[in-house]
């Protein structure tokens, strides 16, 4: 089995990764209402029939979330493999 120290380092790095990804999506999610509040004219500009606000929230937010999750998984698996390699050394 792995040592306590190994697990501890791995967990800490995974947590940092999780927090970084969470921060990205939280800034976008919680920033949207602020954008709507302070820049209503900007958010009402038309894009292909949609208002910018509607386009972002109703359509674009989903691919944004998918990209974050894909990057998180890639990096978290890479982290695990990294740690395993460094222990084997």
């Amino acid at each position, binding site marked *: 089995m792995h040592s306590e120290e190994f697990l501890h380092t791995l967990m800490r790095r995974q947590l940092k990764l999780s927090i970084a990804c969470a921060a990205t*999506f939280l800034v976008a*999610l919680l920033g949207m209402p602020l954008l*709507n509040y302070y820049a209503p004219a900007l958010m*009402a500009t*038309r894009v*292909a029939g*949609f208002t910018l606000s509607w386009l972002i929230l*109703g359509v674009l937010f*989903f691919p944004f979330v998918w990209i974050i999750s894909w990057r998180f*998984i890639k990096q978290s698996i890479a982290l695990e493999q990294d740690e395993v390699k460094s222990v084997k050394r």
Partner: protein
Amino acid sequence: MSYCIASLGGIDPWIVAFSLITVVVTVWMGFRSAKTSKTASDFFVAGRSVSVGWNASAISGEYLSAASFMGIAGMVMSSGYDALWYPVCYACGYLFLLLFIAGPLRRFGAYTIPDFAEGRYDSPLFRKIAVCFVLFIGFFYTMPQMKGAGVTLAYIFPGMPYWAGVVLVGAVITLNVALGGMKGITLVQAVQYWIKVFAISVPIFVLAAVYGFYGTHLGANVAPGEAAAPVTSAEVSRHDLPEKAPKDAPWVSPFGPLTTKAVNAAAAALPAEQRAAYLAEHQKPYSLLYTYSLIIALVCGTAGLPHILVRFYTNPDGVAAKRTTMWVMILIGVFYVFPPVFGVIGRNLMPELYAGVGAEGTDKVVLELPTLVTQKLGIIGSILERYHVRGSLCRVHEHLQRIARLDDRCPRARRVRTHAAAAVHAG
């Protein structure tokens, strides 16, 4: 199709056929899984061997309820922009799950959430508390689903009493769960996701081909600060809005009817002279607060659903659990683009729904809108509509499955369930 309807005393033969198929397949899958469910591990967590593809489809199928199918469309139609927070926050709740919960939860390796609570924190008391919460959530989840079952079946089969729908769907699902446990359910729900996503998207594409797509219909609403809408009413055959309907500007912009409800009610309680001043000062800030409160509730609520959390245990390992979550986000994200489109098109083409209340009002838009296609395209429209209604039925089914499974958390129910399974094997 009207002669068929007349001959069966008002019941549509397509719907009878679809419904019968759904019931038979569900029960059959329960029996089939009973044969392969031998251990407690099989029964509660499908032997921890569900592949990413099946599991993602099953979780997505399970997650997408009547609320997602019909409710979001109805809410977007009645409240506009603000209702878009619902699907987005559901998807973000899953991201939250992925980032912090999926991997570690799966690696811990228990059977249920109360198991995890007790094991992780070494506390039987915590287990009891977790059980109470799970039952509480389950109870409040079941009530609307039972109602949905009764209402849907009463809608589809005119003449069927409300309670009969509730009992029938409840019986089918209980049978399926008791026999097959998690394996039976996983199969049923995976299939149901694909049925649902086609049921929500195909009518949209057909409607869009005939009446114009998402952006075009949104363009027909006048945003604040615009002199006129970019798309004319004639281009999308827009009907006139009834009195009750929200006006274009608050509907299409943020801080509209949904998030200003509370502050408007407070203003209405004031004497008339003070209202305008009160609203000018408080409407937008309170509505911003409401928005944030909605976001927090939806994201944390989604991340905490016990019947979703327990699904992570059915993956072979932590990496699979994470991958499953990502695919779930993709599958439900793709689904969630479509219900708002129903709401938007419904506002333009069927505004008479605004005059109705509750189940007779905007909530029906998903069921009613495809009928427009029937008028134009005859039989294709009919089939589309029937398939679509069947999609609604699916949701009711799988809701009750989910609730029936939650009872597994209660130790007594677990013993009963295991005895039932054992009896089936012995008999």
